[in-house]
């Protein structure tokens, strides 16, 4: 599962941050999870907990903040939410975007002018907000 690959990155990075902050034990990890990557939070959370075992992250509370994705057309300037166009995608297309979010340009176009040239202004992927 893709969630495991990302979780591995989160655990590695959180350990680096904790080390830089001289934390002996991590109490909280704050994550921002963008809508476009369609992360299965249950799988992601399980992966994070498994990968944190026997580390200073082991008992940390992981807080997720989901943030919606917005797209902005580079041609006509129209702005819309990913959610508006998401339901028009088939499962294969959703999966491609799950793995490589930039493939959104293949499967989604501007609802107003039809261009595939748009920007993901918010909500692309997973970020660490803080490690406490």
């Amino acid at each position, binding site marked *: *599962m*893709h969630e*495991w*690959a*990302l979780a*591995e*990155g*989160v655990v*590695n*990075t*959180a350990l*680096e*941050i904790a080390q830089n902050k001289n934390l002996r034990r991590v109490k909280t990890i704050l994550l*921002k999870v963008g809508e476009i990557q369609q992360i299965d939070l249950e799988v992601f959370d399980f992966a994070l907990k498994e990968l944190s075992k026997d580390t200073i992250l082991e008992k940390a509370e992981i807080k997720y903040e989901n943030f919606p994705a917005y797209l902005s057309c*580079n041609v006509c300037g129209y702005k819309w939410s990913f959610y508006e166009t998401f339901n028009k995608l088939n499962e*294969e297309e959703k999966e*491609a975007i799950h*793995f*490589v*979010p*930039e*493939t959104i*340009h*293949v499967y989604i176009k501007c609802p107003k002018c039809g261009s*595939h*040239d748009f*920007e*993901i202004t918010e909500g*692309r*992927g*997973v*970020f*660490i*907000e*803080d490690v406490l």
Partner: protein
Amino acid sequence: MKLIDPRLSIIEKRLENIKRIIPVASGKGGVGKSTVSAFLALLLKEKNYKVGLLDLDLYGPSLHIFLNNSHSFPKEEYGLIPVNINNIDFMSIIYFTQNKPLIMRGKELTDTLIEIFTITRWNPLDFLIIDMPPGMGEILLDLIRLINRLEFLIVTNSTRIAMETVEKLINFLKEQNIPILGLIENMKIGDQDFVREKCNSLGIPYIGNISFYDNLENYYGNYNEIINSPISKEISQIVNFFA
């Protein structure tokens, strides 16, 4: 605290079981980077090396044509395991685009490259051959930024027009102290020596040349014909340079 991208810390780990990483680059398009990359991978594999092949030409992926494979999908296993084709581990953006146009700007190229390296779990390899896009933009710069043990193989053709750009790439890599294995002169026509002389003046090895073949496309997708083709015999001498 600024938002931190957790993917960056995992890239080196993803590559830790790969002994040598060789981007095949030119700066110039149309000189045969993909052909050289694919032949190199096949011939290294023929010498019993474990070989991976990564198509990073995100706007114009083409190695799947050479390998005759575009409808498989990498196996999901804590990420994605590259598709194994004739014992070469292969990864390409083509598996996610259904062969449709993928248009992107600036940072999106960077994000795609990072995502591919984050999710791809390469088996242990002796060589990872990377087919680079033309140009000196995001893909080249990010590869250099994120992976610190690259050994570049430069490809040009016999024209001064190609060499004009190739020389700029070589100078850039040298200035950044990035190892260059050497240069291959592809589609060689005539007997002029200016590419070899240019290599001498730039201080990089001239590895060898490959003749121009007007029937090259007849071999694509057919493993046995590729291996027994005349171009294979020429490139195998170049392979000896590596292994």
